[in-house]
């Protein structure tokens, strides 16, 4: 009884009607998770409004939304303008206890959808200023609202893709599954079929390839028109069984793989056909032409042109095609991850070809060496704005041998650096280039170098050396580098002091968010009102992921792969990891769109952006992305007790 009275006293502290409305809201999320004082505050600042059936509550032409609406009673219908229907097309229905329009409110813009009362309805209206205040105070409300925004981000991406699809006049997306693109049954034959017979089948079926399958329909090999040219040129008999002339073990992908996966595989392996398998059995063949018949994003062709370029000039000319390709891919709704992956791949091809052409020009040094790359190139996160960060590793018997080989390699390395610069890879200001004697080292010397980085670490020199921790082989044998990486992970895992210092470095760049409404931007100079998307936005994620990956034995050097690895190992929470990924992704995407715009306007690439020039939604999402960077940093600070 006493408890009951106490309860009642607590309740009568607020007016009956406020209390009643609070009780009503407490039946619905996110209000059921909100602090009572916040909820009372919310209700006390609400107005209750009636909308008769058919009345328009909010429409796109009303301009930026001023209120947060909660349906107290009734049904609200969202209608997108539709030419054919007088009332538009219903896109959603909102009923008792639900709220709207979160995305427009947070994006500080007008709604895209007209909200109409489908029945006589009552809504509680909260002024934007009060909503923002509560958004700051109440974590459940904030989470709820942002979840809305994050699904909105998906919608934005979908819209971009939809637009691309419209302009192509067909259902096309880089994310579509291969299974959706398989138009016909695969053309196949048994291994003992003669070449003549196989070519006849290909001719009859109007295809450029035939897959040789086992009795259980497992793909054993592939034979294409290109192979036929070779057979005829070599003068081989057409009566031979095809298994003797086919390309064995053809590259295969599962039917669930995406169009993009196939395109990337073709680019990487320089092949024109990919076998699609389900449960080990051949279910189709995707050809280069299938993938790109609908549009001109011909990255396989581009990769091949780069790979086969006979002169440096050709490579230099092909550079502008890469830019056009990225442009089109952005327009087609490719994600930043897909684009960085693609740029990295085309860059790798260019680097390899430049190395080969330079060797042809200056002569082979007479021993094997490996071309290493570091930093963003090492992480496979290159954009069109790319610095050279590279080095050379070779095997040597002893110090004298190493010195001799270095002498031999340096002129070549220097020439490669210059040639790469001509192809658009800016020379590294910090001279982190293979032509630098300190970065043209034997495996032994590299190992020693990494030892120094870690055992003699100070926060200052770690700042300079951490880009070496993102190393990767672009050209040459990969084993030496793999050993080096294993050693590195091992040394690092044992050295908590250097982990701590790396953590300190990772906290150096503070994400540029201030209070609720503000970005922190430069106050004066040419950089006035701008912030740096790369240094201030991406670097915290890159640094954080690197540190945690190194400390936990994760081999990948790619930031998103590192985050995934950390989630898999349980080092970071899956939800946190997903949020970091999404935020990283969005900042990178914003940066690339920014670069594209600069390219169109003939400006130099820069990572600095004036947030006020973004649209409202992008600005709000960008701010939340920076906030995620902040969260990652505070989790590091906690972990390393900084």
């Amino acid at each position: 009884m006493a408890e009951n009275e106490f309860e009642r006293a607590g309740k009568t502290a607020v007016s009956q009607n406020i209390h009643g409305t609070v009780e009503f809201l407490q039946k619905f999320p996110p209000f059921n998770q909100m602090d009572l004082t916040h909820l009372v505050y919310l209700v006390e600042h609400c107005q209750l409004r009636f909308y008769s059936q058919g009345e328009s509550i909010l429409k796109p032409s009303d301009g930026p939304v001023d209120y947060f609406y909660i349906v107290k009673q009734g049904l609200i219908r969202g209608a997108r303008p539709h030419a054919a229907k007088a009332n538009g097309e219903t896109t959603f229905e909102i009923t008792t206890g639900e709220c709207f329009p979160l995305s427009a409110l947070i994006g500080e813009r007008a709604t895209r959808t007209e909200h109409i009362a489908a029945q006589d309805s009552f809504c509680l209206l909260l002024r934007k200023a009060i909503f923002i205040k509560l958004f700051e105070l109440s974590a459940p409300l904030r989470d709820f609202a942002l979840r809305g925004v994050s699904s909105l981000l998906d919608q934005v991406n979908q819209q971009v893709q939809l637009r691309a699809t419209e302009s192509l006049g067909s259902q096309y997306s880089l994310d579509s599954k291969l299974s959706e693109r398989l138009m016909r049954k695969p053309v196949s034959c048994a291994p003992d079929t003669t070449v003549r017979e196989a070519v006849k089948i290909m001719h009859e079926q109007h295809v450029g390839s035939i897959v040789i399958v086992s009795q259980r329909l497992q793909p054993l090999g592939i034979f294409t028109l290109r192979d036929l040219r070779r057979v005829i040129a070599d003068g081989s008999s057409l009566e031979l069984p095809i298994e003797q002339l086919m390309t064995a073990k053809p590259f295969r992908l599962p039917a669930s793989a995406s169009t993009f996966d196939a395109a990337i595989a073709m680019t990487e392996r320089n092949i024109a056909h990919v076998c699609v398998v389900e449960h080990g059995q051949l279910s189709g063949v995707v050809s280069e032409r299938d993938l790109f018949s609908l549009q001109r994003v011909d990255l396989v062709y581009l990769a091949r042109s780069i790979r086969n370029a006979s002169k440096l000039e050709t490579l230099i000319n092909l550079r502008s095609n890469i830019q056009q390709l990225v442009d089109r891919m952005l327009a087609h709704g490719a994600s930043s991850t897909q684009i960085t992956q693609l740029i990295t791949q085309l860059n790798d091809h260019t680097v390899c070809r430049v190395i080969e052409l330079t060797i042809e020009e200056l002569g082979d040094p007479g021993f094997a060496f490996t071309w290493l790359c570091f930093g963003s190139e090492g992480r496979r996160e290159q954009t069109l704005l790319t610095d050279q960060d590279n080095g050379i590793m070779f095997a040597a018997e002893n110090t004298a041998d190493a010195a001799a080989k270095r002498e031999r390699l340096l002129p070549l390395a220097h020439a490669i650096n210059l040639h790469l610069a001509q192809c658009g890879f800016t020379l590294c200001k910090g001279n982190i280039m293979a032509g630098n004697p300190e970065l043209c080292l034997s495996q032994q010397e590299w190992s020693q170098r990494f030892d120094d980085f870690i055992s003699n670490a100070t926060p200052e020199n770690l700042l300079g050396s951490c880009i070496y921790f993102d190393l990767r082989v672009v050209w040459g044998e990969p084993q030496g580098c793999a050993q080096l990486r294993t050693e590195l992970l091992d040394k690092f895992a044992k050295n908590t002091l250097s982990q701590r210092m790396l953590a300190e470095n990772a906290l150096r760049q503070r994400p540029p968010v201030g209070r609720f409404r503000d970005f922190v931007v430069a106050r004066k100079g040419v950089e006035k009102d701008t912030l740096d998307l790369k240094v201030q936005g991406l670097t915290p994620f890159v640094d954080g992921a690197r540190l945690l990956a190194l400390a936990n034995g994760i081999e990948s050097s790619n930031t998103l792969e590192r985050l995934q690895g950390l989630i898999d190992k349980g080092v970071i929470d899956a939800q946190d990891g997903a949020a970091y990924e999404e935020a990283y992704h969005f900042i990178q995407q914003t940066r690339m769109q920014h670069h594209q715009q600069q390219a169109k306007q003939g400006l130099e690439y820069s990572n600095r952006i004036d947030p006020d020039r973004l649209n409202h939604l992008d600005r709000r999402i960008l701010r939340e992305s920076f906030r995620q960077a902040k969260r990652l940093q505070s989790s590091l600070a906690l972990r390393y007790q900084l």
Partner: protein
Amino acid sequence: MNALNWLTGRPTQLSGEQQHRLEQLAAPAALDTAILDQQRMVVVDVETSGLNVKRDQLLAIGAVVIENGAVDLAQHFECTLSCENHKVSASVLIHGLAPSMIAAGTEPAEALLDFMTFVGSSPLLAFHAAFDQRMLSRALKQSLGYRLQHDFFDVAQLAPMLCPDAALEHAGLDSWTQHFGLQVQQRHNASADALATAELSLILLCKARQQKLDSLLALQQRLNLWLRRPGRHSL
């Protein structure tokens, strides 16, 4: 003590401050053609010790405000009045105000001053307004010597006038809330009833707009016609 109190009908003396507040009260605004949506209106409901407007006492006042076409939840009035010689009667079963709550209530003069300050110059709305009007008038007269001259609109009359199709001519609040599917948090609590009446009023104001009655004056005129319409049988 003023010996003429009984003559002026002012039974209790007011403190200096109360006297000052009484003098500061806004005069009622005359009904005009101001757009209905921009009006401030106070929706009131009272709880009493019974239904006899001459004898029974005012126990509680609840009020909410309709302003700019919406109920503003920031403006609400809720008060239980203390009452000498209060006897528990059967009405306790309706309003649920326990003797202890009434004993702990606000002194009537203070409560009524608060209420009239809250009302300001705004016209009032109530369901079966005549009852609320008389109870309030009498209490104001007794406690403050104040003459209530604010306009009252009876929602019980507006509702059938504006919604003839509902066929609820002499219906109570419950019938109307049911008709429109309104949820009442706690029936016979002055505040909750006031809010329910306000929600009903929002619907009615919307109907009024649809019927081109866009000012309180127009509404009043239509209501007078409606009350005098031929064939209407009196209560």
